[in-house]
């Protein structure tokens, strides 16, 4: 069958189940029921602290075929996933569903577990290119991976679609009763916001810590009433690994030029004003846009309502300068953000659900004015791919991409038109992550294309000196320079299912040949 974007998707996918096809960005809202939660009562005097991960696994009641969950706030410095999965493998468990909010290159030790059938399913909403992504791309995982958005994951957990049997929470500071926080200790990594739904909805919740503090931990981010067991390990991770990938402003003059153009567009469109809200990713160009927007805010003496999402030092500085009244933090992208989260009460945590879950009474993305997004490919209908490269290799997951695009008033994709020897604007993207109906503008080094659905924006910017053109023109320009590539060939094997934030299937990733 074809979904609303014309993507060809089977009605039933082995290892995934029946498919609910994507039918529009806002077509699947309405009344929802949350899953019931299983809670084991503790009697006074019963100890939660256990001596090893193996003992925790034994006590947790883990069985073959169950789902274990992790969060990714230590990003590429995380050591908890590898330690726990090694113990699970050593104890002889098989057919485990690894439900991690993020998977990074540091998780390479998982590949043999995927190959041997210890791990047979992976769900993630943040995925960095690396060995695990390669293994999934090449069909080594027995069931298709499920790639969700940051808002889609808590929705799946809270609705019961993704039931977590045992949740492991990396806790940089934790007391023996399970009160914990992410902002203190040698492995402080910032707020643990992606793990909040895991803590509430998992059958068994385990705090894994390398910093056992006297009771009660203070402050408490996740409370003892949610935690079943506590286990002390030598190290939960290396916080320097948080700064993985691009969390520095680009120095490439062309990308800086894109950033300047983007900031000028935001200003010309009237979004730089008191009370504005703003979010960027951690890519070099996105951060450069933040730096440029800061200049406009300073010049206009504007005070924004909030910056949100993954928080980086540029937003921390803007908060300290009084350019934002507060920050909403779902993860820290660098150590300056970690310090700020620990010290500044205006730097607030938001749960992943509050951030982007469409099936709530309102998520923060709906209050967002301007969102800066990246893309590996964009098609002429403004559909965006951030999941796969043009060769079909899995390079990422949606992250907050389709959540923020759906919620924000101005969703801007920034990208170089030419990526290597390919044009980023295509007739059809390799994989759709974010529907074009939620993207407002594409800013490239070769010009700006405004989504024809945004008549208001076209009208507002028509007399500006911005280099506005059509997306078809951008495609022509790019393809004149790069040529039109032969389409990548794929086998019929589905290696990943890409869920839209509402749980419908927006696309699938097939194994490239």
């Amino acid at each position, binding site marked *: 069958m074809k979904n609303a974007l014309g993507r060809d998707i089977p009605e039933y996918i082995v290892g995934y189940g029946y498919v609910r096809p994507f039918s529009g960005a806002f077509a699947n809202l309405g009344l929802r029921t949350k899953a019931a939660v299983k809670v084991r009562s503790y009697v006074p005097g019963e100890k939660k602290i256990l001596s090893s991960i193996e003992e925790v696994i034994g006590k947790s009641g883990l069985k073959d075929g169950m789902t274990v969950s992790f969060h990714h706030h230590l990003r590429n410095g995380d050591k908890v996933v590898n330690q726990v999965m090694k113990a699970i493998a050593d104890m002889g468990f098989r057919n485990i569903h690894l439900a991690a909010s993020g998977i990074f290159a540091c998780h390479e030790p998982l590949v043999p577990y995927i190959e041997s059938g210890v791990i047979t399913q992976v769900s993630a909403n943040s995925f960095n290119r690396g060995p695990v992504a390669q293994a999934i791309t090449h069909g080594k995982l027995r069931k298709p991976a499920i790639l969700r958005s940051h808002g889609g994951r808590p929705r799946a957990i809270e609705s019961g679609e993704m039931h977590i049997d045992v949740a492991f929470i990396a806790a940089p500071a934790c007391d023996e009763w399970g009160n914990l926080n992410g902002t203190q200790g040698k492995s402080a990594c910032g707020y643990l916001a992606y793990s909040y739904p895991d803590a509430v909805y998992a059958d068994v919740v385990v705090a894994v810590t390398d910093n056992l503090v006297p009771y009660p931990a203070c402050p408490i981010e996740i409370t003892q009433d949610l935690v079943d067991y506590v286990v002390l390990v030598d190290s939960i991770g290396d916080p320097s690994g948080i700064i993985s990938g691009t969390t520095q402003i680009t120095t490439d*003059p062309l990308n800086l030029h894109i950033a300047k153009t983007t900031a000028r567009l935001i200003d010309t469109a009237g979004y730089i004003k008191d009370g504005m809200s703003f979010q960027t990713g951690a890519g070099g160009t996105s951060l450069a846009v933040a730096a440029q927007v800061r200049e406009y805010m300073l010049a206009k003496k504007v005070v924004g309502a909030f910056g949100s999402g993954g928080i980086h030092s540029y937003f921390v500085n803007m908060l300290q300068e009084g350019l934002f009244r507060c920050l909403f933090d779902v993860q820290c992208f660098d150590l300056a953000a970690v310090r700020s989260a620990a010290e500044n009460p205006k730097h607030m945590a938001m749960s992943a659900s509050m951030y982007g879950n469409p099936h709530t009474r309102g998520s923060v993305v709906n209050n967002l004015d301007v969102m800066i997004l990246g893309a590996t490919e964009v098609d002429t209908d403004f559909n965006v791919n951030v999941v796969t490269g043009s060769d079909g290799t899995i390079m990422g997951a949606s992250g907050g991409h389709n959540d923020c695009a759906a919620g924000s008033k101005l969703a801007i994709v920034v990208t170089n038109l030419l990526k290597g020897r390919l044009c980023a604007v295509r007739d059809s993207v390799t994989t759709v992550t974010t529907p074009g109906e939620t993207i407002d503008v594409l800013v490239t*080094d070769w010009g700006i294309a405004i989504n024809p659905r945004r008549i208001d924006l076209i009208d507002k910017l028509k007399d500006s000196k911005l280099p506005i053109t059509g997306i078809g023109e951008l495609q022509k320009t790019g393809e004149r320079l790069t040529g039109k590539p032969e389409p990548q060939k794929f086998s019929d094997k589905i290696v990943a299912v890409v869920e839209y934030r509402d749980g419908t299937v927006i696309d699938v990733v097939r194994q490239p040949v």
Partner: protein
Amino acid sequence: MQSVLIVNANDPKMLLDAQLFGADALMFDLTKPDEAERDVARILLQEAVAFLGYKTASIIVRANSPDTEDGEMDIKTLAQSNPYAFVIACSGAETVKRAEALAQEIEQSSVTTKIRFILAPDVGISDEGFKVLIAASKRISAVFLPADMSRFIHISSGADIPVIAAPPVNPQDARDLGFSGAATENGGEVDGINEIFSEGRCGV
């Protein structure tokens, strides 16, 4: 012509990207490539101009000295691409006259637009020598000077020849000193130059 972006003529990526920074002029530098690569650079630049067009900016070619074989080839080859002007490094009027003769020869033997020169005088040149230099040809459309040679601006202005500041230069200083525009090798600086010079003195 207030902003000039200098581009190594042997850098394919920059040849592609150069027109995206909003510079009034692109100065393709044939003196940057090593001697062994200059033939290739000439062809590359000729092809780039033909294919990419550079319609949003004036094209300037910084040639090797016309006193050399490379310089002669630079002008003869790239004249076919009809650039706005050639930048000529020169220590005295003899070099300008040689370039003038070469230009006449090219214009007689092939269909090109009028060949113009932008002079880049040697550092040690005297006031008198500079005056002789800029009077040596009617093809001189501008002078390209580092900031520490700004004393020549009034002489050049007297002859109605604009002066572009060579990098490294602070664009604000360049404007304050009386330069008509400024050049940079960093595309990211073009916006700043455009902004500073936008109130405008005489352009080229």
